């Protein structure tokens, strides 16, 4: 890990766009329920940002707004200064946001390798005609996707499972394949929705190392929703706390730990 400069230092010195992701005043209602209420925060490039809060605080709702699966009633979301307001869900991967889901959503009838190759879909150019007649351009792109998928699978330490059907994997393996699929979109920002959920102690430790190497080796910014406090606090450069759809704290893990509202809303029940 040593020798790879962190993006954070590079970005702050170079004066590049200071924030990768800006969430501004995002409000989301379901009927009479306000799931997100004026949520505002930003994510600096090259960092791991933890998004925490009690169940029902609006974390997954916010992820779904970022993926354009939901359209916020108010507010704006910008990636590298570009608003996502007029984007369709399928545009998001191409713009540089990859994601995983709370319970792994693999394409169960496909092989592990093909699952990860779908992650590269947005970068592809092959259409039905080039595919139908396997033109040279089609074959070249397939080889490239193959390579991306295999390297990504190696990165999540599942290189040996490439040809297995996705349905045959254990829960922990499924989560890692889903992570590989998100990384294969070659994102600037990856959204991880409870990556530690359902994992045992050792698996959580491995996951922590993996998420760090996503930031340090792949230089991908991470936005992490997680209930595992130990993991979030040890990994995150920045922590945003949501409660009842509002941001109640935003800062380093140490700063957030000291905010009384957070202790009351969330940590207080545990300590």
């Amino acid at each position: 890990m040593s020798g790879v400069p962190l993006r954070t230092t590079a970005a702050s010195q170079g004066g590049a766009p200071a924030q990768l992701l800006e969430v501004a005043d995002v409000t989301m209602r379901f009927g009479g329920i306000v799931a997100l209420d004026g949520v505002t925060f930003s994510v600096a490039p090259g960092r791991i940002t933890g998004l925490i809060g009690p169940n029902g605080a609006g974390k997954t709702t916010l992820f779904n707004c970022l993926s354009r699966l939901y359209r916020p009633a108010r507010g704006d979301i910008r990636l590298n200064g570009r608003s996502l307001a007029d984007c369709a869900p399928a545009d998001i991967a191409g713009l540089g946001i990859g994601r995983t889901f709370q319970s792994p959503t693999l394409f169960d009838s496909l092989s592990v390798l093909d699952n990860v190759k779908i992650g590269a879909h947005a970068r592809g150019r092959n259409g039905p005609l080039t595919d139908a007649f396997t033109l040279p351009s089609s074959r070249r792109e397939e080889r490239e996707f193959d390579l991306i998928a295999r390297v990504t699978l190696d990165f999540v330490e599942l290189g040996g499972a490439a040809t297995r059907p996705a349905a045959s994997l254990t829960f922990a393996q499924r989560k890692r394949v889903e992570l590989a699929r998100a990384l294969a979109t070659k994102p600037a920002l990856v959204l991880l929705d409870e990556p530690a959920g359902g994992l045992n102690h050792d698996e959580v430790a491995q996951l922590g190392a993996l998420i760090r190497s996503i930031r340090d080796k792949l230089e991908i910014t991470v936005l992490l929703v997680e209930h595992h406090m130990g993991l979030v606090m040890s990994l995150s450069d920045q922590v945003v706390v949501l409660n009842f759809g509002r941001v109640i704290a935003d800062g380093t893990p140490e700063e957030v730990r000291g905010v009384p509202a957070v202790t009351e809303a969330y940590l207080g029940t545990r300590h």
Partner: protein
Amino acid sequence: MNDGTAAIASEKLAVGGEARLRIGAWRRFAIAALIVLAAALPFGLSNYQVFELTQVMIYAIAVLGLNILTGYNGQISLGHGGFFAAGGYTAAVLMHRYGVPYWATLPPAALVGFALGLLFGLPALRFEGPYLALVTLAMAVATPQTLKYFSWTGGQQGLNLAKPAPPPGLGIDRDRWLYLFVLVILLVAIRVAANLLNGRTGRAWMAIRDHPIAAAAMGVDTPRYKTLAFGTSTLFTAVAGALAAIVVGFVAPESFSLFLSISFLVGSAVGGIATIGGAIVGGFFIEFVPNFANDISDAAPWAIYGLAMLLFMYAMPRGVVGSLGPLAAWLRGRLRPAVAAGEISAASNNASSPQQTSQGRLE
């Protein structure tokens, strides 16, 4: 890609590459042998048997089209008889009214099928499962009467077509020539379908079938690919319809009843909806089981047909090819225990030495 990635990748490809090559060579040999056999077959059979097998291949192309839509993209259609009719009538009208040679009617029939499928695929985006079945059923129900309505379709009587002559000098008769002609189209159809399904397009189709939301999150434009699946599917089925018109030498509204649409779905399910080989099994079922049922009982052929369907689906719920594939894979595993064990140990090695394998960078 940096050098590290390339090195890892080439190393990966080398492992097991030899085994894959050998299996590939065997497969290629088996396929070539099958094609030679299929091409030689008509010369040992009666004229009627040759005609029947030609029909089997035509149905196989139609079912292959349906498999692309239903098996690989998860959209059900009870209306493919209508698209089969569209292809048949395109060929018939072009031959009958404009004197177009039979072989030249296939591209226009394909185009008509594709365009109709796209038109149908757009409203289909709003429906799923049983609701989509109902919408497509409308197509099947409306087809025969719509065809009767227009004069250029020959109305109730339909159109009689001159049966195409075999190329002179080849020394084969008309039935055997048409058999070979249809065989070539079937092989092209299978190849094109396999290429599509193995490429970016087919992967996107299957991803949508398995999990549409995750597919969209990975950048798959789901409405576009679902519509495209519809058009591609009906293109195949319309080409089959054109071949049927050419081979039978006759089209009439009653040839494209609701039952034809249902037969395609039955053939698809019996063969295995998400398989390519299943389409051929389906072709055999559609062509022979009704006749076979008739031979057993003049009084109740459809009861026998229904019973045959039940038996097939009970014994092989994933269709003949869908069920035999896993069986064959299991047998291969039993026959090559050493290789299988090697794969497992390679996998566990990989898992226990994370530091070695995580050098690659995503470029």
